Structures are given as C-alpha cells and as structure tokens.
C-alpha cells in the first residue's frame, strides 16, 4: 500500500482560489488606505504651505515703512499705493533676503494671490514711478489660489487728521479720526493707514485677514499668556 503525503489537485485548486481572493482583497484594501493616507498628507502639506506663505505676506504688510520717494515734479511723497484690488508698498523686511527692506506688491494673477518684491539692498529706490510690473519682474510668489482680492483701509484722509488725535497711541483710539476707505494712496493722504482688511476669495471659500501696521502701533507686542488652538 502506498501512502501519499502530497496535496490532491482539489486541495491545491481550493487553496489557490482562497489565496488569490485574499491577495486581491488585501491589495484593494491596502490601496484604499494608502491612497486616502496620501490624500490626507497632501491636503495637510498644502494647508501648511499656504499658512506659511500667508504669514509671510501678512508680516510684509505689517512691516510697512514710511518710505519717501521723489515725484517727477521733485516733491517728496510716501510710497504706498493701495487700490481696491492691489497694493504696492515698502516694507522694512523681505522674503527673499532677510535683513533688508523691499518694495512689495500684491494682486490677483493667473488664479492666484501673487506677491512680488524688489529687494532694497544696494540700490535705494528714489523715484516714485515704480509699477507693479517693475516689482514683479524681480521676484514673484504665488501665495494661495484665489479668484478675487478685496482690500479695505482704515486710515486718515490727511496728515492733519492723524496728528489731531491722541499722540500717545496714534494708530487708533476711541476718538480716532480714521475711517474705512476702499483705496488709500499716500501721495494724496501724506500718511499711512493703521489697519488693512484683506479678503481673499477662491471658488470654495472666502478668507478675511486683518493686518495692523507695526510701525505705527507702539502698543503692538506679543501678549499671549495662554494661547491655544482648537
């Protein structure tokens, strides 16, 4: 009598079918998990990158400097041109070269909120005839995908109005003579706004940012003693 220790054909076939099904199911499940994990990771990386860039932008606006240039008529004027949808200003900081100032600009371009800058290191800007295109030819960076940008400025209509209020805290106080405006040109007002409200819209959401200009607010500092997020 012969003893067979091997598998029968039926056993082999059944085990193969089971093994194949398990492999098929597990690979599907694995793919599902991995794809989801990657999507989540990508989404987090995007949010994180947008966060970083928006911080840069807000810091650049907050560091606006009282920078004077000469007009073609030979007059001195502050360089700060804020329209409803675009802004050109001089900042004491820069994104590309830390420790230097820069002429900065922002507007919507090609479906993005775009930030541009021209570093003020060796050559200082002396003329008032600089445009958004001049600045963007040096360096530009897409901050976030956006379809519309709306800017509002809380500031004074002229220097006299600003000086007529509390000199201790000239940015804003209860008796502030500042008002909200949808454009702000320092060539007309002779001063800078105290606060800028920026609304950035894209297809799905609308984000609002309130930026206070550091240089004008002596009370501005980090006061957080119990900051947490949820």
């Amino acid at each position, binding site marked *: 009598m012969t003893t067979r220790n091997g598998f029968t054909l039926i056993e082999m076939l059944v085990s193969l079918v089971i093994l194949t099904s398990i492999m098929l199911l597990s690979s599907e499940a694995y793919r599902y998990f991995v794809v989801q994990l990657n999507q989540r990771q990508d*989404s*987090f990386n995007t949010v994180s990158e947008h966060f970083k860039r928006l911080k840069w932008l807000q810091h650049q606006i907050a560091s606006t400097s009282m920078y004077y240039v000469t007009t073609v008529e030979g007059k001195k004027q502050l360089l700060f041109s804020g329209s409803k949808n675009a802004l050109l200003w001089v900042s004491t900081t820069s994104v590309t070269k830390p420790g230097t100032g820069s002429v900065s600009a922002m507007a919507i371009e090609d479906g993005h909120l775009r930030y541009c800058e021209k570093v003020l290191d060796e050559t200082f800007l002396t003329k008032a005839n600089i445009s958004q295109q001049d600045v963007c030819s040096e360096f530009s960076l897409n901050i976030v995908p956006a379809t519309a940008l709306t800017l509002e400025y809380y500031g004074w209509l002229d220097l006299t109005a600003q000086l007529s209020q509390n000199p201790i805290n000239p940015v804003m106080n209860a008796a502030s003579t500042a008002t909200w405006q949808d454009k702000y040109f320092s060539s007309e007002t002779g001063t800078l706004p105290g*606060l800028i409200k920026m609304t950035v819209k894209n297809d799905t959401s609308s984000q609002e940012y309130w930026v206070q200009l550091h240089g004008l607010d002596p009370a501005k500092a980090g006061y957080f003693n119990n900051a947490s*997020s949820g």
Partner: protein
Amino acid sequence: MKKHAGLTLIEVLIAGLLLAMALGVASVVFQQNDLQQRQAERILLRASQLDSVVNRIRYELQQGAVQGEWTLSDMPYAWQAKVIRSAAVAGAYDAESGGLTETNQQKSLYQVDVSSGDNPLYSFQLTL
C-alpha cells in the same frame, strides 16, 4: 488507510484570530493617523486666523466695544474684554513740582477671552 494531515480546528481559529488582531491594529493606527492629520489641519487654520482675530478685537476695543461676536473666514468667534488696570498717561516734566504732569488720556490693560461655540480658544492681555 487514509491519513489526513490537515490543520485542526483550533489551529485555524488561532490563525484567524491572529489575522483579525493584526488587521484591527493596522486599522486603528490608520484611523489615528487620519484623525491627527485632520486635527493638525484644523489647528493650522485656526492659527492662521490668530493675528486677524487679535487685530480685529483691538480695533473694536478702540471703537468702544467690550465684547463681540462675528464670523471670520467661516469660523465663529465670540470675545469679551474687561479692564484689569487703568492709569492716566504721564505728560510733560513739571519743573515746579519736580514730577510729571497728568494728561486726560487713559491707558488700560485689558484681559481678553476668545471662544468659538462652547470652546474657549484664547486668553490674552493687551493695552490700549
């Protein structure tokens, strides 16, 4: 005589149990990871609003409000502030008295609490 050298029921059950445990652990790890990523994203979105929240509260305090409720970038916020200390702003040096004259301007230190729904978010102080 036929001899079946297959797996016993106990062996099959133990193998099944081990497999189920491994799958269970893997799915828990995956779910935790997913939850943490979502939470990190939420925290990051909140953090990106922080400066704007403080600047808006400062602005509203300047306008005379001591509390407010609004939505900023689709997120609800409620805040209230109370004065902790208030003092007159010192003026010029007065040679006669040898001290500083007082002005009629006040500086106040505020305690501000910000919440969203029932969740307390931030607690900080600022001077105006």
